[in-house]
């Protein structure tokens, strides 16, 4: 039952809130991977490591997956943690029904490699796909949280580099504003069990170029949205980052970009991760995949 499922997720998040604060970066990265081990991988999806022009990545595909379409996935983790492994349950779930293959990308992380290292790696992976013979319009870029922000920044970098336009981008709880200045940052502070304003500003300090949160590569809301492909944006209404999604939709709309935005009542940041525990998470993933499949048709 839905309310009970949400409660189970909330209890889990409350128990782990603040648990990472005393850890070092390597310890945090390990903790995230360890935590994600509980989530099962989707059946029937094979995993193949690959070097995407020097960027570590992993193909995730069903045996019968069409080879003319790819969903390039940029994991979340505040630009500083997270990995292919930490997000494998979610990305293999996508690979299970996406009409192509998934390429999960291990872009370089802060604080060792701040912005724009992550963007450069994402663009390299995109170029890798193009040079492998894929059409831009058959490539969907997707990401959660910081990976969602990175996806938007990558779209902008792809456009600025004059590369063929991707078919679209699907972002879950995207983090597109490093300034932590939005209304929901305070309005939803009690509801959000994961992200605080301090988390955002701490991340800006280690990720943004020169620590400047307003840099458009770290806060893609500040860059141009002209010519971007269609966007699918999903956010939980209990998120401090809810306004990031709304403002993203607005910026895109002002630039005449096609947007589909979904707000999911009572859901937390990247609630899609809790697919094994919550039907809404599975519904949201299904909606994202259906959208992606329609884009590449």
């Amino acid at each position, binding site marked *: 039952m839905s309310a009970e499922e949400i409660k189970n997720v909330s209890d889990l998040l409350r128990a782990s809130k603040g648990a990472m604060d005393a850890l070092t970066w390597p310890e945090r990265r390990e903790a995230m991977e360890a935590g994600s081990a509980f989530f099962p991988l989707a059946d029937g999806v094979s995993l193949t490591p690959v070097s995407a022009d020097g960027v570590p990545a992993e193909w995730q595909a069903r045996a019968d997956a069409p080879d003319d379409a790819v969903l390039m996935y940029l994991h979340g983790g505040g630009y500083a943690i997270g990995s292919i492994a930490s997000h494998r349950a979610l990305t293999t779930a996508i690979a299970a029904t996406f009409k192509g293959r998934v390429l999960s990308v291990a872009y370089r992380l802060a604080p060792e490699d701040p912005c724009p290292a992550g963007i450069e790696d994402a663009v390299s992976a995109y170029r890798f796909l193009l040079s492998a013979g894929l059409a831009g319009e058959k490539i969907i870029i997707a990401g959660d949280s910081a990976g969602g922000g990175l996806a938007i920044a990558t779209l902008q970098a792809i456009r600025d580099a004059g590369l063929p336009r991707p078919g679209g981008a699907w972002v879950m709880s995207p983090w597109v504003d490093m300034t932590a200045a939005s209304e929901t940052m305070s309005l939803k502070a009690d509801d959000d069990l994961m992200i605080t304003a301090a988390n955002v500003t701490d991340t800006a300090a280690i990720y943004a170029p020169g620590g400047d949160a307003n840099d458009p590569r770290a806060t893609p809301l500040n860059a141009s949205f002209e010519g971007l492909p269609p966007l699918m944006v999903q956010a939980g209404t209990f998120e401090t980052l809810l*306004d990031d999604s709304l403002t993203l939709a607005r910026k895109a*709309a002002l630039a005449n970009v096609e*947007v*589909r935005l*979904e707000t999911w009542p009572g859901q937390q940041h990247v609630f899609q991760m809790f697919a094994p525990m919550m039907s809404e998470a599975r519904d949201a993933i299904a909606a994202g995949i259906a959208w992606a499949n329609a884009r590449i048709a």
Partner: protein
Amino acid sequence: MSADELKTVNELLRASNMTERPGSWSERRAAMEATLAAFPKADGVTLKPFRLNEIDAEWQARPEARDDAVMLYLHGGGYAVGSIATHRPLTTEIAAGFNGRVLSLGYRLAPEHPCPAAIDDAVAAYRFLIEDEGVPPLNVVIAGDSAGGGLTVAALVAIRDAGLPLPAGGWCLSPWSDLTVSSGTMASKASDDLMISDVSLKEYAAAYAPGGDVKDARATVLNASLKGLPPLLIQVGSAERLLDDSIALAARAGAADVAVTLEIWPGQPHVFQIFAAMMGEARAAIAGATNWANARIV
């Protein structure tokens, strides 16, 4: 071809000079009727007009439509013009795809009947459906374009506040949610929007707002508490002065923990769905919405 179809629509809008609507209210009403008279109705939809509590209403349904599901449709026209007739091309197109019947409502118009007359009429029609017609509330979707979109939200709020069981959802087509007419896109999209004039909107707002207070939450639904509202589907074109009305409505509803689906249709004008006969995107938007509504009802 998609871009050509939109070009034709924009040429039509330029030629009809829709933003220039001087004259009395009856002249404006007549002008809207005349403009939309040329638009074709959808095939295969039967029309049954009747009087519902002293206002006009009309059933619109395919012969095989379920009679236990209804979309209650609230036409646009700045709360002061428009009718069942002006919107028949749009609503019959909707009826062609919705699994239930459409009930198009001739709610009372401003300035003769300012807010909350239209809301009262919409709520009364909803009560008629669930109490007299025996339609399960969760098989009712309320929908409307432009002012009718704002009215959809106002009606949902009123239904909630009256303690009535809520319907399955609300579908807002380019809703007018801010009668202060002061949003960012009211200015920034002015040259892109060939339909809406901010001067006209302010006249309509003054005619409708209760006691002339355009900030009243029943008129500017952005100011209402939206908690507890059922899921909303909001469709808007990116070439609209009212673009921000849709986005702000999505933001307010999302913040109030409502399930919102907001669709931005690039380059499309205000209530582009009325151009269903001429544009694939218009038909696609209607089809997407009727699929959404069909999935919501039980």
